[in-house]
């Protein structure tokens, strides 16, 4: 498996903070858990109404989902199996070559 299967269990979620309070909740949470932002490029660019895609590591998924629910932030799972999607990105011949 590519990258030694390090992304096993990881997901990408999409959320939409609608209020300043929700943005603040995200920023507070980000102080504790430094997740990788797919878009926008950082927590600094998160504002009400801006779509946010974040890479959720397997070990943090439960905590992140609970925090989002507590803050009332709607989210959906964009990529349920990140390792699987990485494997799918390349055709089999290209993967063997790598």
């Amino acid at each position, binding site marked *: 498996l590519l*990258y030694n299967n390090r992304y096993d269990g990881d997901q990408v979620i*999409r959320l939409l903070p609608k209020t300043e309070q929700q943005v603040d909740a995200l920023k507070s949470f980000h102080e504790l858990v430094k997740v990788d932002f797919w878009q*926008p490029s950082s927590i600094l660019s998160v504002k009400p109404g801006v779509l946010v895609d974040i890479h959720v590591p397997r070990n943090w998924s439960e905590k992140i989902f609970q925090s989002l629910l507590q803050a009332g932030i709607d989210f959906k799972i964009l*990529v349920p199996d990140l390792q699987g*999607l990485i494997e*799918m990105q390349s*055709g089999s*011949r*290209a993967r063997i070559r*790598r």
Partner: protein
Amino acid sequence: STHLYSYEVYHSLEEIQSWMHHMNRSHSQLLYLFSIGKSFEERPLFVLQLGKRSKHLKKAVWIDCGIHAREWIGPAFCQWFVKEALQTYHSDPSMRRLLKQLYFYIMPVFNVDGYHYSWTTDRFWRKTRSNSTNFNCHGVDANRNWKVKWSGEGASLHPCADTYCGPVPESEPEVKAVARFLHKHKKQIKAYISFHAYSQMLLYPYSYKDAIIPNFKCVESAAFKAVNALYSVYGIKYKHGPASSILYVTSGSSMDWAYKHGIPYAFAFELRDTGYYGFLLPESLIKPTCTETTLAVKNITNHILKKCP
């Protein structure tokens, strides 16, 4: 030689560099490979000059791909565009006209160290691979390291942040090398186009302020026609407009720097898709993405040559 290399798979940095050398040897009438400097990890920063050789000074368009390491569709597009230009030079009058009238300076992989790191170690790496002296973190966001509204909104001064703008502007040798080249050739270079992913957008200045550029009419017209041309291929919709309104206000990017330093037509593409695959656009979508984008780039270039001062 363009038929032996696959343009519908992602390639390692070594493969891309071998390809560049091979193309340089086999298409010397239309292609010239040179280096503009070295990366932090001492890798050469290669640029391809694409176009019919001329004794006279020709206008030029600069294209770079892969400022952010994980955006692999960018370098895939740069390779595709070179292939397409060479393969259609004799059969496509519009491509032939472009390559006779101007040069394309194409940098297939801007962030060579980051690209290699994303290929081998961390697929979602974004930044360069320079060292921070005080922290055990690597890299600078190469699109926030330019001397234009540096360290503004959205940039971070913390070395461990993904949008770390660096200790000073142009701290990254990659950024400095490109800035030096663009500055040296700014009378020749009429357009700057940078390729990123994802979001399906065609952006132009400003990123760092909510204001209209002086030559808005021509830039907007070029962008509008380009996204329409792109849409005509497979029906894929791209938003277009000033980065500060289509996205959000951020610190200055490479596009803003190019514009501020006298390149009148500066654009940034955010290629496919809108998040279903994100950075992991499958190889099966390289061809359609690059086909539609090639048409958009030709459209922009033609518009600028014919319609704009």
